[in-house]
């Protein structure tokens, strides 16, 4: 009987100590995968013509006076 009690106490102690364990490593979260709707602008920006249009616009309105 005493042996059973000692074993159950040991198991309880081990379980209790295991509960106190704290993971020392730092969890690093990576950006997730976008879950929203597809933006049609992405297709437009892939075109070379659109990129050239934006660059031409930049040279027209953003250059120094």
């Amino acid at each position: 009987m005493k042996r059973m009690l000692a074993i159950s106490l040991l198991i309880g102690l081990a379980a209790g100590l295991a509960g106190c364990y704290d993971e020392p490593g730092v969890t690093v979260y990576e950006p997730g995968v976008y879950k929203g709707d597809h933006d049609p602008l992405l297709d437009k920006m892939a075109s070379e013509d659109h990129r050239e249009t934006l660059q031409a616009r930049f040279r027209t309105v953003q250059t120094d006076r």
Partner: protein
Amino acid sequence: MARMKFLCDADRCIECNGCVTACKNENEVPWGVNRRRVVTLNDGEAGEKSISVACMHCTDAPCAAVCPVDCFYTTTDGIVLHDKDLCIGCGYCFYACPFGAPQYPQQEAFGVRGKMDKCTFCAGGPPADNSDDEYAKYGANRIAEGKLPACAEMCATKALIAGDGDLIADIYRKRVLKRGGRPDTWGWDAAYGDKV
């Protein structure tokens, strides 16, 4: 591949807030939300400097890294956008952003913030380009029209420039050479002076 960036030349910015007004006008930004604002350092003292700040469309955007619902996406040209239909208004992106770019339209009790709003580089959001739905949620989509952000195009002194990062760098390099020195807007001396 172009990387769309903003650059504010503090030696040219005259704190007129024209960029803020242009942004609000172009995008019908709700009252209380400032997608762009002008910050002045050492205001009122000789040598004060002003810079116009909005979302900087970070290459490794911390807002996207912390978003629990993954509502951020980055276009092929590096513009960081988000889907308001997914946003739960938790505010994590606001805490993560070093520029204070994410804004919330509601200030009510119990943390009700509403959907996050921020600068879109005038590139709208996921709904169809230049649709009413897109305009209501995100504002104008000037990029789809072949135009650049209204704030930069309206800047009277060309302090604020927006576009391909390589082209911006060329312009700024020429300005610095013409001024005959390195920019003293940032760097160790600007931040700490000669005391450290």
